[in-house]
């Protein structure tokens, strides 16, 4: 009986961790996919690795905040490098993404293997995290009060910051995502909004690193947002749906993982893929299963008038 109870509390912490990652990432992902910058998200999530390792070494993993800030800056720096390589060297964007993130990731892996003893990371953890260990790392105050898993607090703060930014900056993000030139013509700084978004992505990947790793956070950035994109034509609803689908992937993924005895984070990411597949096939508005019927009802775009 006591075992069961223990198990449930851990499950709760794990699902909560996953949910916080999924919600932060899916919300940002909505803007990433609409800006056609999904792969920048992929790049950032890999590029923060050397930042994390170096910050770990410098701060002796004693304090989290400097580490998070330092590593996030490396992510933003990576997007800056990608853009400069594109602009100054006239290298196509996708190639500059591929070159920069693999380089930084390789540097990160070398550092990890060089300082294995000093850094609380190993190569596998880098790729898919260890969400099952999240409940073990508790935040205990000086007076001995157990405040719950440490990771929950950082993830929660990050998630709140992102939700707040999106609510406050909704108009700015909306406008600069839909029509950059028009936004610029109003005198609004598209660069500032771009880097706000990049900072959010970088921050999210850094704080999610321990729990889900570099690649699975990409799944949360891109897949739930894409699924939501197939289900609605309203940005606000798309944001809510993306977060909801992220949560459902986490919840179902956890139990699939328990059933299969497999990596929890990977199962969560895999479930987001399952939801995408369902939407891709059966979405009432955009699924391929109803394509014929929509055409008959004349709801589909009239390409003949589009010229």
């Amino acid at each position: 009986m006591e075992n069961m109870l223990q198990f449930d509390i851990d499950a709760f912490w794990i699902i909560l961790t996953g949910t916080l990652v999924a919600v932060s990432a899916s919300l940002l992902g909505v803007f990433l996919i609409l800006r056609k910058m999904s792969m920048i998200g992929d790049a950032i999530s890999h590029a923060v690795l050397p930042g994390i390792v170096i910050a770990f070494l410098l701060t002796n993993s004693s304090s989290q905040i400097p580490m998070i800030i330092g590593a996030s800056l490396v992510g933003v720096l990576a997007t800056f490098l990608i853009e400069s390589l594109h602009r100054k060297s006239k290298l196509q964007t996708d190639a500059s993404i591929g070159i920069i993130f693999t380089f930084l990731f390789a540097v990160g892996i070398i550092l990890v293997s060089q300082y294995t003893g000093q850094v609380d990371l190993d190569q596998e953890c880098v790729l898919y995290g260890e969400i099952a260990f999240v409940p073990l790392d508790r935040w205990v105050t000086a007076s001995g009060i157990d405040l719950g898993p440490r990771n929950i607090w950082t993830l929660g703060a990050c998630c709140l910051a992102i939700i707040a930014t999106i609510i406050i900056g909704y108009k700015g993000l909306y406008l600069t995502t839909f029509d950059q030139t028009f936004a610029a013509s109003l005198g609004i700084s598209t660069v500032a909004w771009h880097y706000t978004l990049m900072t959010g992505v970088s921050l999210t990947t850094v704080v999610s690193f321990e729990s889900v790793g570099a690649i699975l956070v990409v799944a949360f950035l891109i897949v739930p947002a894409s699924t939501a994109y197939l289900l609605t034509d309203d940005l606000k609803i798309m944001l809510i749906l993306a977060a909801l689908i992220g949560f459902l992937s986490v919840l179902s993924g956890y139990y699939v993982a328990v059933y299969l005895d497999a990596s929890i984070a990977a199962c969560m990411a895999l479930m987001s893929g399952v939801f995408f597949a369902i939407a891709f096939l059966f979405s009432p508005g955009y699924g391929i299963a109803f394509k014929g019927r929509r055409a008959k009802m004349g709801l589909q775009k009239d390409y003949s008038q589009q010229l």
Partner: protein
Amino acid sequence: MIIQVENPALEVHDMTVSYDRRPVLWGVDFSIPKGHLTCVLGPNGSGKTTLIKAIMDLVPKNSGYAKIFDQDIDDVRDKVSYIPQRGSVDWDFPASVMDVVLMGRYKKNNIFNRISRTDRINAEIALEKVGMKAFAKRQISQLSGGQQQRVFIARALAQEAEFYLMDEPFAGVDAATENAILNLLKEMKDEGKTILLIHHDIQTAYDYFDWFVFLNTRLIASGPKETVFSEKTLSDTYGGKLSLLTTVGELLKEKKLPVRE
């Protein structure tokens, strides 16, 4: 023939703009009067869109400046409305017609404010003017080309500007929309608004507009229709690029030399 005007709505002074070091606008210098419908004519790749973007300060200039109502663009952005080419945005974007028109109410200093009632009323009036009020809730992914263009114009109307810069508002629209837009432009002109637009059809341009700017990398002519619209201007404009100018442009790129010291 370049007719300069007194107290102009727009003054473009000695403007040179290049992409990748090759000038696409070379020493362009003209002015247009207030309250007119001015049309920019020129072949593809003659720098028309670049001209508008440079006026709005969206691309860097090598030399020269543009002034609207005798002020720097940054001081009059509230009075200026820019309508980009319809194809420049992704119409699959999750937004309704109303959402897009409301963007016309966004300003640098209200970007963090909530959308107000006045904003909504203004957007509705703008939609009514372009005959799209019934479509306010329609998703933009379901619009035809003509409807998309009307939405863009409604967004500009919602800005309540004095000066409108329109990049190809008639491109790929149906006849009904073309008429509707034209009537709207005339109405705006009667209200004293100034409009500069890019058009691609010489015949209808002659019928529709009263002031012309002929452009082909360099300025060919600028002035009222009766004065500048001629066989000679047209053949100068559409008769191809100046080969010497093109050669020098290539040379600037190849030798990486500056177009201005």
